[in-house]
């Protein structure tokens, strides 16, 4: 579904954070990317989503190259991204936040309604507080708003960067449940970057471990028995 080939990416001209990463995410599977702090996991997601322009290498979505397509157009191609740094529209209501997720089909009132309802079913708390300013919510609820907003578009591929950081334990279990559900029931392809390694391994189908901008390990989750491998440093 999503394929990355020999990707070189950096923030500065001559300094590549990712130095030749290759990976593949299969359809309707959860692929998790692990690695120590600062190895470039978030950078990888940013590069896939186009916030960073790769210096070389390929990113293919269902065989189609994504390089050069502006970020805001990617959502139309069925790929979506939940960044590590939470991003909500603080001074808008919860409902407006969710609605903005429907930006790409903003004229389809019916569909917006439906998607909103789905989200409210998924997160009943949000329904209760749909008129509140998003900035007033607790960190966990803000994360829900963000996830909910992403799901408005029915993406086929979701890039998730540490979705449960800052969430209370119970809530974070729910998020993982939701990811499983998205995979199993809606057939979404998920790339999950996470430091909650145990949780991630529980739900993942395929594992990549990065080390300083390079692939260190990859294989199905069954092969990934030695947890210490995640932290070769």
């Amino acid at each position, binding site marked *: 579904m999503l394929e990355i080939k020999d990707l070189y990416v950096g923030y*500065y001209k001559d*300094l590549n954070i990712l130095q030749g990463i290759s990976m593949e995410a299969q359809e309707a599977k959860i692929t998790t990317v692990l690695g*120590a*702090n*600062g190895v470039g996991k*978030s*950078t990888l997601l940013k590069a896939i989503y186009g916030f960073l322009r790769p210096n070389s290498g390929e990113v293919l979505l269902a065989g189609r190259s994504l390089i050069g397509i502006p970020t805001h157009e990617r959502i139309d191609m069925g790929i979506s991204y939940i*960044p*590590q*740094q939470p991003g909500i529209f603080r001074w808008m209501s919860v409902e407006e936040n969710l609605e903005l997720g429907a930006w790409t089909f903003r004229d389809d009132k019916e569909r917006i309604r439906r998607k909103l309802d789905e989200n409210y079913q998924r997160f009943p708390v949000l329904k209760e507080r749909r008129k509140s300013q998003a900035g007033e919510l607790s*960190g966990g609820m803000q994360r829900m708003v963000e996830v909910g907003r992403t799901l408005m578009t029915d993406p086929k591929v979701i890039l998730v*960067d*540490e979705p*449960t*950081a*800052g969430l209370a334990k119970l809530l974070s279990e729910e998020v993982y449940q939701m990811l499983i559900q998205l995979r199993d029931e809606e057939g979404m392809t998920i790339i999950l970057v*996470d*430091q*909650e*390694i*145990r949780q991630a391994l529980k739900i993942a189908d395929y594992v990549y471990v990065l080390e*300083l901008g390079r692939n260190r390990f990859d294989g199905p989750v069954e092969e990934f028995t030695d*947890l*210490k491998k*995640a*932290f070769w*440093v």
Partner: protein
Amino acid sequence: MIELQVRDVYKSFGGIQALNGVSFEIQGNQLIGLIGPNGAGKTTLTNVLDGVYRPTGGQVWFNGERIDGLPPYEIARRGLGRTFQVTRAFRRMTVLENMLVPAMALHPTARQRDFHKKAWEVLEFLTMDHLGREFARSLSGGQQKLLELGRLLMLDPDIIILDEPFAGVHPKLMETIYEYIDVVNKQGKAFIIISHDMESIFTLSQRLLVLNFGELIADGKPGAVKRDPAVIEAYLGEEEEEEEGIVLIEAGDMEDAEESDA
């Protein structure tokens, strides 16, 4: 003799109670780890100690003098230095100039040239001597972290607070920082190290403080703290999963990524 006393410190932002009656004491050149979940108030505590924030309640005493409410530069001159979780190099000044700022601030009558030698030595130690005349903005993230350490070394404080020194730092450089901490500690300086990197914390620290929701829930030897049920519940996670050494990596580490995203 270094002596820092934190007495029942409170700090609130609007409705959020970031520090809720924190008290502890540091004597001598201890190496202290400060851990706790995201938003527990670690950075806030640093900011209170450093004078960036004025506590809403409580007192901070340093070497027999009350320092809460003093501006940061006064506190820095009294010998308490810190690094920032999000690096804050003076980006449009050269690395060397970055290094000279604290030295000059500390020695009102000295000339810059007096400290050139020392600055170059520190840079050499940090393996950055070839970058001395570069603008700090052209350093990599890790090098900026090192530069912050370098500046602290120039400031030469008695207590050094490192906020997430390992975040975003190349493992090789991490070794350097270990070494740095070790050397400086041996010179008689105290350290407070904040990190989500459990391995480093457990390797380095002689004493652990655990913050949760602005309260100090544990204070003691690393081994003991590791087994403290309150700490496990709040931060380290359940016992059973600890066996495989996973505790060390459990910290869903949001802050350092925030920093690199910023």
